[in-house]
């Protein structure tokens, strides 16, 4: 779909926006982007600054097997630093890791020590909580929903759409334009504005390894705010 490699990047950068729209419309698995009416705001679901979040996590695997976990996450939108921990309900830490330039796993209890688990988890967290970077970006609408399309250098793409005020959808496509992740972000009823942590996040992994994650926000602290802003559903 999207050409990659360093030799092609210059040509990508030179394409005008209209050509991008035509190109993207031609991609088999991705919906076409239509022009966004003037004055319509673009979706911005990603948190800004440094945050600490805790979630109740329900993981659903094929065969309807369910696991209940607690998650702790520290993120910095500027440095793209992520630190996370997964725990049992009883408080036992099963997995902890940090990622900025490189991934560092500090604890991994079986089965959370499997090959690719840490990389996959961090990729999911980055998809849900960090705005894509080092990408080409085009805006438009899909079925009337304002959408930002991020085109990554490796040929993959991410669509971020506004479903309703404070409600967002994040679709991740593989380099052959297959939908591999879909996330729905739901705000708290009391605070449906952008820039606040989502109260509920539903992530469906639709690739080779299928699973679903249901994240419910327990607590949120903005750690770089002078007033120590906090958020709880």
């Amino acid at each position, binding site marked *: 779909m999207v050409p990659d490699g360093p030799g092609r990047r210059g040509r990508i950068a030179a394409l005008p926006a209209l050509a991008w729209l035509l190109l993207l419309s031609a991609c088999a698995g991705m919906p076409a982007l239509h022009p966004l009416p003037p004055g319509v705001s673009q979706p911005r679901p990603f948190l800004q600054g440094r945050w600490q979040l805790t979630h109740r996590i329900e993981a659903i695997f094929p065969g309807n*097997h369910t696991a*209940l976990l*607690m998650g*702790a996450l520290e993120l910095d939108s500027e440095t793209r630093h992520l630190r996370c*921990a997964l725990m049992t*309900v*009883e408080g*036992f830490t099963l997995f902890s890791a940090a990622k900025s330039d490189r991934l560092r796993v500090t604890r991994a209890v079986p089965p959370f020590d499997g090959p690719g688990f840490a990389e996959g988890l961090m990729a999911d967290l980055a998809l849900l909580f960090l705005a894509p970077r080092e990408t080409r970006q085009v805006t438009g609408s899909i079925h009337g929903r304002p959408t930002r399309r991020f085109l990554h250098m490796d040929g993959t793409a991410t669509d971020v759409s506004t479903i309703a005020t404070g409600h967002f959808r994040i679709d991740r496509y593989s380099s052959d334009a297959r939908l591999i992740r879909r996330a729905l972000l739901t705000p708290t009823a009391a605070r449906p504005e952008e820039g606040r942590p989502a109260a509920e996040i539903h992530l469906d992994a639709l690739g080779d390894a299928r699973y679903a994650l249901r994240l*419910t926000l*327990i607590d949120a602290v903005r750690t770089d705010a002078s007033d120590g802003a906090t958020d709880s559903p």
Partner: protein
Amino acid sequence: MRRCLQMVLVTAALFSIGWTTSWSSIHAAADAVRTVQSDFTQEKHLPILQRPLVSKGRFAYEAPGNLRWEYHAPARSILLMQGGETRRFLESQGRLVPDRSAGLAAMSVVMDQITAWLQGRFDTNQSFAAELVPGGTIVLTPTAAGMAKMIHRIELQLAAQPGAIDMVTIYEDEAAFTRLKFHNLRLNHPLEEALFREAAPHGA
């Protein structure tokens, strides 16, 4: 009359202080405990969290081996141990469902450990070296390297009430630990058998 009341109070206080001074006095106090019911607050402290992750729940124990360990919030989970069998129920999509994950086997080990503590058997588990510290604190240190990678040590603070535990702190390392504080503790009150058999018994 007043002198008599003073003597009773002093005797009770001495007995309360005395029960934590030796393993034999701890065993003797635990032997008198038939049932325990308590609410608890669990705090998970992590270096990446300014505020601990707080969970609330309730447990019920009946000697020698029946246990119900239940979390109400923020995630509902119920562990039942009866007749040597351990089952867990988790809240999934708004309803309680049986847990069939591999983690249940590990929880069975944890439940065995909790019931051992409730029976006053702190010093009989080969996996941990137990030290009784003056002031009623028991420190359990893993004896095997494999366990020590997961748990640095466990500290149990015994309560003034003979046979009761005030607080348990499980250290994964110095910065990451789980603290359980018990409150509304009731000893030797009759308990319904269904509490240990059913996830949602009538009136539970």
